[in-house]
Structure formats: structure tokens, C-alpha cells
């Protein structure tokens, strides 16, 4: 087996996916355990939906540009 080339778009997908999971997770945690000092527009829970958008975009990129494994010469 020979490793296929990894596209830059796959790296971007991984980055968005991991960030999306972390941000969405942190947003959900804050929703369940609200902080005492709230930020402006805290009630919009931006972390949850922005994290979800990043997560889905990253997932799409990862699936579309996943490295292919090809038979060796």
C-alpha cells in the first residue's frame, strides 16, 4: 500500500470539524451550566449554532477530500 496525497482541503476539514466539536460542546455545557457573569447576547447561544455550522462544514470537507489509499506500484 502507498499513501495517497493528502489534500489541503482535508486538513481544513479536520480543523473545522475539531473546532466545531469543541465549540459546540462548550456551548452546550454553558447552556446547561450558565455562568454567573454573562456576555452580551449570551441568550443567543452562539457557541452552539456556530460550532454546529463549523462541525458540519468540516465533516463535508473531510468526506469529500478524504485521502484515497491506492495500490502500490
Amino acid at each position, binding site marked *: 500500500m502507498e499513501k495517497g496525497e*493528502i489534500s*489541503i482541503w482535508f*486538513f*481544513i476539514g*479536520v*480543523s*473545522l470539524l*475539531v*473546532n466545531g466539536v*469543541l*465549540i*459546540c*460542546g*462548550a*456551548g452546550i*455545557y*454553558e447552556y446547561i451550566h450558565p*455562568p454567573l457573569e454573562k*456576555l*452580551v*447576547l*449570551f441568550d*443567543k447561544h*452562539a*457557541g452552539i449554532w*456556530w*460550532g454546529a455550522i*463549523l462541525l458540519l462544514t468540516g465533516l463535508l470537507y473531510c468526506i469529500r477530500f478524504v485521502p484515497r489509499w491506492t495500490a502500490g506500484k
Partner: protein
Amino acid sequence: METIRLVHLSAVDIVIIAFYFALVLAIGFYLRGRANTGEDFFMAGREMTAWVAGLSFLSANLGALELMGWAGSAYQYGILATHWYWVGAIPAMLFLALVMMPFYYISRTHSVPGYLKLRFGESSRVLSAVSFAFMTVLMSGVNMFAMAKVMQIVLGWPLSFSIWISSLTVAVYVALGGLRSAIFNEVLQFFLIWAGALLIPILGLYEAGGWANLKVLITHRASAEYVHLWSGLGSFSSNPMGINWVGIVFGLGAILSMGYWTTDFLVVQRILAAKDMRSAQLAPIIGAGFKMFVPLIVILPGLLGLGLLPMTLTGEADALVTGGHSYNEVLPLMLARYCGPGLLGLGVTALIAGFMSGMAGNVSAFTTVWTYDIYRALINKKGTDAHYVSVGRWTTVMGVLISVLTAYLVMRAASIMDYVQALFSFFIAPLFGTVVLGMLWKRATGPAGFWGLFLGTLSSISMWAWVHADPTALRYVALSSEAKPMAQDMFQALWSFVICVIVTVAVSLVTQPKPDAELQGLVYGLTTIPSEGEVAFYQKPIFWAGVVVVVFVALNLIFW
């Protein structure tokens, strides 16, 4: 003394930032095996697609000064700061794509000084290479300083810690993977910058009640001229920037931006790495398409800060005296206003990514120019390809170290933006005059190219020194007693370009021109532009350039 910080990072924020550093280093290590030849290390194998080259072209420019400085300028001067993104960028990017790129690409040059060598001779190449290398390390140092400053303000990190951790990371991934690694990371950084910064205008506009309400808030706190692009530019005194439309259109749009986007090797290098001519032409057009919307994440946060923040921001000097916040802190202040755990980490990552993409751009361009245009041209002409790659790797490390030293030197600079604008005016405007005459006028001779560039640069430095020594001299440079410092850069660029062109034309007319045979592939009229082949209209650069022009005109009319 306890350090005051705007925000405190949570564990998830630190994980996000650490993951970013791990990923950029992983890309560098992954690509290290693909940077063994000079063509690979310095030109990324000339195999980038239009999208990768175009996003990298834009990302290399999204450095510290873009994110922090222009958000601060938007707070200070209002929507006028958008001119640096629209009239001060879009026409130049399209000019590069449609007019200049064919000559760069067909000549197969590895750098802008390399083109000058082919067109005008060795002396012009050395002059531009040395001035570019000097400007680049200073720019890189400014980037580092700005990054360290924001990390100190936002997170309370010591300046030296930020400078060393980011610069060493850049040194590792560029030294390992060369230009390809820099470009790949710039594309990644482009996405992270948008992902981390776009939430501020979305939430800010929601809080303000939309653009119409924001204009009312800004008019109330500042004046109506802060929300108009062109209507206040009739005279120097009718707008917050103290400049008029002549300075913006001719100084910024026709000279300074043309010089930056078409001859600054930092950005042009990304396009030269494109896989074919059509990609090389499409890349700046793709960059222009995205550039038009960068004000969303840079200018709009500054305007939102002006309309929504409870405190009043001031210049750096006043902020130090009063203990308040300066204009340059508006972006982190807006970040701290809306972003909780996770989002804050991504926002900080966006800032770091911006700083690192700019730094990597400077370092990779410096490496190429030093190795090919100074070391190979003046010091060792007979090295092997492997030797020059090795020199390139070491130059990357040395370039970073010189930048770090520069960062420490510029820590005492009063204003980051003014400093860099002055640098642009010194070198960029005359260089544009020399390159564009070289490409479009076959009569321009080698000695003329050198003397035009030299005297244009000298005139620019002289004007700057004159106004620096006697601030009242600005009335002569900008042709108005009401001009403010921002106008100086525009008019200085305009005059240095004019002097460069006059000298080049005059010297050309009294010196021997090069034979046509030596100018093939370098000059308009003597260069056969390869056919684009059988492609649909929507695949042609000219079609997308037209689309960009329509959107560009519409945006300027909407915000007139």
C-alpha cells in the same frame, strides 16, 4: 506589576489554540519530503490550483496589521478605512491578473527582482532585491510586535513569549516544507480567520439593530461622515481622515495599491506558484472576490465598536496616559464582548493565524529573494540546486531571527500603521513605475530602469524625512494646508511614482534600447500570450474579472 488582560481563556480555548499549532506543524512535517529541489522549495513546484493560489495570495496579506490595525482605523476614521480594501485593492488585483501576470508567468521568473534582471539588468535587480529584503524583515518584525501586543492585551501573555512561540513555529513549517508549506498553511489560516472573526459582525449587527441603526449610533457618537465612503472626500477638511478624493483615487488606488498588489513579491510569489497561465490569472481575481468582503470582519467590527462600546478609545499615547484602551484594541474588545469559551479560543486562533500567515508570507518571500537575487547573484553563482535549497532553509531560520530582533526594535514605534505606510511609500510606488514601464514600453532601457527606481525611492525617502523634520512641510507634499498625516503617504507615493516615470522616460530617450530579440516574453507587443484553449466563457479570467467589477461598483455606490 500585575498584567491587565481583557479575557481569561478556559481549558477548551487552550485546546483549540494548541490544536492549531499542532496542525500547522503537522502540515510542515507532512510536506517536508516535497521540498527537495529549488523549484519545489521556492516555487511550490509551480503546481498550485487557482483557488489555492488565490486564497493564499489574499491570506498572506491578512496579517496583524490587517486585522488589528484596520479595525482600529475603522474606529478612528469610520468607513473611509474601507477604501484600502476596495479602490485600494480591487483594481490593482484585476490589473495584475489581466495585464501584468502574463509577463511574470511567461518569463518564468522566480521573483519580481528576477523579472527586473531579465528586463533591465543586474543593477535594477540588486537595488530592488536589497530594498525588498530590508522592507520584508521590517514588516515581519512589525507583524510579530503587533501579534505580541494583542496577546499581551487580550491574554496577558508576555511579549517575548508570543514572539518566540509564533516565530519558531513559522520557522519550522516554512524551513521544512518551503513555499508549499507556507501556501497550504495560509489557506488553512484563511478559513480559520473567517471562522473566528465572522461571528463578531453577525452578533454586532444583531445587537445594533441592523446597519441602518448602526449608522444612527455612529452619527450620534461621531459624525455622519463616518458612514460615507465618498461623499466627504470633496476636500481635506470634510472627512475624519483629512484626505481628499485625489489622494484616494490617484495616490492610493492608482499608485500605492497598484505597487503593493502587483510588485510586492510577498503576494506575487503566491501567484507565480500557479500551475498554468489561466490559474495564474484567475488566482488574483478569486483573491479580489474575497477581498471585497474582508471589510465584514475587519472594518465592520471597528464601526460596531464605535457604535456599541461603552468606553471611548483613543490613540496609543493617550491610552498609556489614561490607562484606557487604544483604537488598535477594538477587535479584541469586540471579541471579549461576544465570545464565550470555545468561541474565544477560535477568535484568538484567528488572530494568531492572521499574524502567522503574514509572517510566513514575509519569511518565504525574503528567503527566495535573498537566495536567488542576492546570494546567487552576488555571493555564489556556481552552487548546485541542493546547495541553494539548503541556503533557503537556513535563510528561513535567519530571516525569522532577524524579524524577531526587528520586533524588539519597533516596540517603541509610536504608531504601527504610520510606520508601515511610510515603508510602502519608500519602495513600492517607484518599483511599480519601473515594472509597469518595463512591461508596457519596450523603449525603456536598462540604465533608465535603475535610475528611475533609485531616484524614485530616494525622492520618497526625502519627502518623508522632510515632513518628519518639519511637519508643516506636509502642505507642500499634499498640496493643501488642511492635509493630515494619512494624506502624506498617498501623495508621497504619487510623487515618487511620477519622478520614477519621468526619470525612466528621460534616461531611456538618451540611452541605447535593448534589441527586440532580448525582450521577447518580457514586454507588451513582443510577447505572444498563449491561447486559453477551448474553454467556456465562465471559465475565462475576463468573465470573472467583469463580475468582480460589477460588485465593486455596486458596493461603492451603496456606501457612497
